[in-house]
């Protein structure tokens, strides 16, 4: 989901005055932490936004139906547990 534009920091003068937007989250994708991924079934989704509110990352975008940012979802499963219509299923990704 992220655009892969690179933040070029090759020498001290390239750095901003403050440690702001150094681009660390562009390379530090946390998807490898996951053993299973949440998959949203749009036909069961009622658009309540509970998964978006509860996602601690936040890796769920409030689209209709919601979309998951699989670059950063760590697979905690909170969205699966909170979904009132059981629209989110757990898909094994064990490698």
């Amino acid at each position, binding site marked *: 989901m992220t655009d892969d534009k690179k933040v070029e*920091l090759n020498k001290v003068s390239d750095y901003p005055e*403050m*440690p702001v*937007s*150094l681009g*660390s*989250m562009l390379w*530090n994708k946390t998807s490898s932490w996951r053993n299973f991924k949440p998959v949203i079934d749009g036909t069961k989704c009622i658009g309540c936004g509970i998964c978006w509110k509860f996602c601690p990352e936040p890796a769920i975008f409030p689209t209709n139906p919601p979309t998951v940012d699989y670059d950063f979802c760590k697979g905690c499963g909170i969205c699966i547990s909170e979904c009132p219509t059981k629209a989110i299923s757990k898909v094994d990704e064990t490698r």
Partner: protein
Amino acid sequence: MKQVMNGDFAASYGAMSALVKYVAAYPITPQTLVVEKLSELVADGEMDAVFSKVESEHSAMAACIGAEAAGIRTFTATSSQGLLLMCEVLHWAARGRLPIVLANVNRAVAPGWSIWADAQDSISQRDTGWMQVYAEDNQEVYDSIIMAYKIAESPDVLLPMMINLDAFFLSHTSEVVDLIDKKDIEKFLPPYEPKFKLNPSEPHAFNALTSPDHYFELTYKMHLAMEKAKKRITEVGVEFEKMFGRRYGLTESYRIEDADTVLVTFGTIAGTAKETVDLLRKEGKKVGNLKIRVFRPFPQEEVCEALKNAKKVIVVDRDYSYGFEGAFFTEVKSALYNKGVMKPLYGMMAGIGGRDVSTGTLKEIVAKAEGEDPKNPYFIGVKL
């Protein structure tokens, strides 16, 4: 406008005069009066700021960090145990490059429980990345806070600054303080306009995860900022003197031109030292005093220049780095070594835990140094 006030009130009025817009603070003896006065000034509408009551000093600094990151000029004050509780967030403020100003009333650290003057609190926070100033009198407390914002907010500095004042000797002692008119302050101190701030319409990631590829450069940038700060402190001091007639630099020399023995002091002891110098001069002794006003960044060039002609140098520390010696002594010695200036140095700890350092104490210190080769460190006045 001249008013009689204690050092705590001087700190409060300093924040008000510097047009601070946000204060989060937690009271602790002997800093309590700073918080009470600020709360009163805000409640009475004299100071156009938001005052947050918080549940701890850790929260006070955390709240200031939030406000400062949103682009607001902030202030807090604390002392001793409170400053120590702030330790983690002091690092956040400094490495986050947020020019927050803090007044710290130097008070001994427990146990034994003590409320008296001692610089152990701020010295133990030496390596947090904060600039540190030690004030000698209440006027200097007030003026230093106003100058602090101009220095800290400079785009090539962006580091927080701690203004230290001795417990009771300043915090609860009343002196005349000349307050600066708002229209003059506005000429001296421009509004705070950070390049980056928390702003929903222009989002940035602040203080995010930083890999070994980048962390070291951020540290190096703080080194560059500290070096720039030395220049900025001097420039702002000159500008301040031009506008308001009072001079402040990194250090202050007193009768050192022809001095054989130079005392190196900070805080209120510097005032007593100048009086001691006058007394010893009347006895025919060539003694001088070098007051170190700014401890971080450490003014090593100025210290070496001031001490180059001295035959003996005595550093008086109201603090102790357990297992070694007084912190100011270590720094002075290191600065001289860096510049290749070698001479007998005496590290004297005195006034620890608020014990009085009188002209008599300083005379005893000078006599000791004149009578023997250095046997550091010295613990002056300990009942052996």
